[in-house]
């Protein structure tokens, strides 16, 4: 097991206000556009971002341009790491279902909706900003003292 290698990262900058942080697949893919060596591409079927680990030069540009700084360099090979939806059959969904928590599920949309969906990019936020919102939702006014 390798917690720091997980493409789904859960930030807990303050206990209780956990942030689930993973690629939200912006409709305009700023990360793909930023890559100087064309190591990033969009999967035709899932619309997920794929990383060619041979090509990646670990420059970190994709992290900087992501509105949520979501990608990270893998602690093993130091290459850009982004959720690839396990090619359309995500392991996270399977294990969550198996455990009967059903907190994760796969959303299926017609291609034309999925491609033009502007809302997804709104989820791409920095963990610190998301923490503030989630903390206020949970702790109310007190959140200001906590995060």
């Amino acid at each position, binding site marked *: *097991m*390798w*917690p*720091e*290698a997980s493409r789904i*990262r859960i*930030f*807990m*900058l*303050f*206990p*209780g206000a956990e942030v689930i942080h993973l690629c939200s697949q912006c409709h305009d893919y700023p990360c793909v556009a930023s890559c100087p060596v064309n190591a990033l591409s969009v999967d035709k079927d899932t619309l997920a971002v794929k990383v060619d680990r041979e090509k990646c030069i*670990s*420059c*970190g540009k994709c*992290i900087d341009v992501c509105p949520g*700084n979501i*990608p*990270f*360099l893998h*602690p*093993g090979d*130091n290459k850009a790491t982004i959720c690839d939806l396990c090619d359309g059959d995500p392991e996270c969904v399977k294990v969550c279902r*198996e*455990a*009967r*928590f059903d*907190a994760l599920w796969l959303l299926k949309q017609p291609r034309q909706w999925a491609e033009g969906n502007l809302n997804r990019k709104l989820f791409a936020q*920095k*963990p610190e900003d998301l923490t503030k919102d989630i903390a206020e939702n*949970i*702790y*109310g*006014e*007190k959140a200001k*003292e*906590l*995060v």
Partner: protein
Amino acid sequence: MPRGYAGKILDIDLSNDKIKDITISEEVLKNYVGGRGLAARILWDRLGKKWQNVDPLGPENLFITLTGPMTAIHPGARVCITGKSPQSNGIIGSTCSGEFPSELKCAGYDGVIVSGKAEKPVYILVTDDKAEIRDAKKVWGTESPETIRILNKEVREELSKRHPKIGVWKEPGMIYCGPAGENRVRTAAVLQKVSHAAGYGGYGAVMGSKNLKAIVAKGRKPLPDVASPSAVRLLWREVDRRLCNREREWPTVHGTGYGGYETAARSSSEPIRNWQEEWHDEKGFGGPKFDYRHWVKRCWSDFNCAGSCMKLAIVKAGPYKGAFTDDPDYELQAYCGPNLGIFEPDKCIYMSALVDYLGFSGINGPNTFAFAAELYQRGILTKRDIGFELTWGDVEAFEKLARKIVKREGIGDVLAEGTYRAALKISEMKGVDATKYAVHVKGVEIGAHGTRSGEDYNPIGYACSPQCGDHTSGVYDAYRDMGSVFSDSAVICSFVQDWELTWDYYRAITGWETTQEEWNRVLGPRIMQIQRAALLLGGPDIVWNPAVHDDNPPRWYEPLPSGPYKGKTTDKKVVEEQKQQFYKAIGWDENGIPKSEILKKLGLEDVDKALEKIRK
């Protein structure tokens, strides 16, 4: 290298700013595993010869924090905190859950041993293969939420500076002490998150005595390799299927948060007003009250566990608005509720939150508050002694008392020594016997499960345990008891542990052939013998006499005054009988001292030699 282990332990001397890595031989690991067991061995090796003279709050004591081979690889990762206990003067393995142990193992370390005393407040930062001692000025004196906020920020900023390209750093894991620990209050805990505490043993005070505020760990490496990855994967899923799912009321759906009503109403074994009663039927203190009014999270777990025993309770309205804590867990429901004469969930949440923020153990600290309140009820302590009226149920008064203890002001300085030591002092001050109101076993305030009704804990569970008042490590027959020694040594949570699978799981991780029988007959007892020897040697301020102190507190021989078990009490004759049976089963003589032949058989010649002076 043994599997399941990171392979190194940090050995830090704060007096001389020295940090080194040590390794433990496979032979020792196989025998003592980790956590409680390994710490007992390390403590004995380093302090055994001078045990009676080691002041638990002096620089010569060790503060030991250890994981085990199963930690973070089995659901329910915990860390075990030990040292010479400032409560029992023996060795207590005290565990708490959170992400610190997994971060530590990913950083390449199985544990940290801290000796000496820093000149000024410090914290230890452990990152991949490296440790450093850092200034803790900013967090000295801060309450728990503030400590977490500041340390998370500081460490993440520092790591981003060192490794600017790799992306956003996730928060580290940490253990820390609160203001109570800093001021060497003997009921102070070592905490993770806001309300996860290693409470028994008083190790928060040991941290404070070393000027050590926190140990922070961030590791980016994988968890250690296991001997059989495919077996571990299969077993993980099976443990998860059996124990971590929504079809289990306990712990997944209700956590322990329904116990505050149930333990009193059903089994009459919940402390009420310093254990003067153990039964109540206050339905307003029932689980649904906490659940519907206060729980904002119902499914919450630490890393690699879907057990979900944690809830998040917040008071949303009224004078206690803003207070937040865990369920509260049953122990805190009881100790910060009925045992202080509080029967309203929002007040109980407020008190639970307060003890967390100040860094008390939620069992031990409030046990002392209730002890003081009973002395006030009986006129032994007066308004003049305390500074205000200390009546049952008065949250504001208990808050004032808690803060006085933390600051060691006036009577607070006496009560900061824990219930038993305070009782001795007050007896002397007032010329009365206050020890009969002290509910403890060998200096350790007892968990919230009584023995009088006969429906909950067994009569010698606490009395003969080397963990004393610890409700998670009671003893019965010197065989089954070894289970908790194992959980504390492999360092996993007993809530998500299935004994049918535990040994296969252990073997799949370590590759060793250890069996349950071998553990229960040899390895577990060996650890218990070391703990027992340390406890009986004790010192320097208190030495226990098994004839007197292997017993329940006097209160537990008074008849229950109310409820369906009214009139019932713990039978002294049964206690004496079971005590002798237990002594015999575990290999102690009729005076409760481990027998020479048994110790020699277990290879503990050094322990045997040290006990000569008390055998006589």
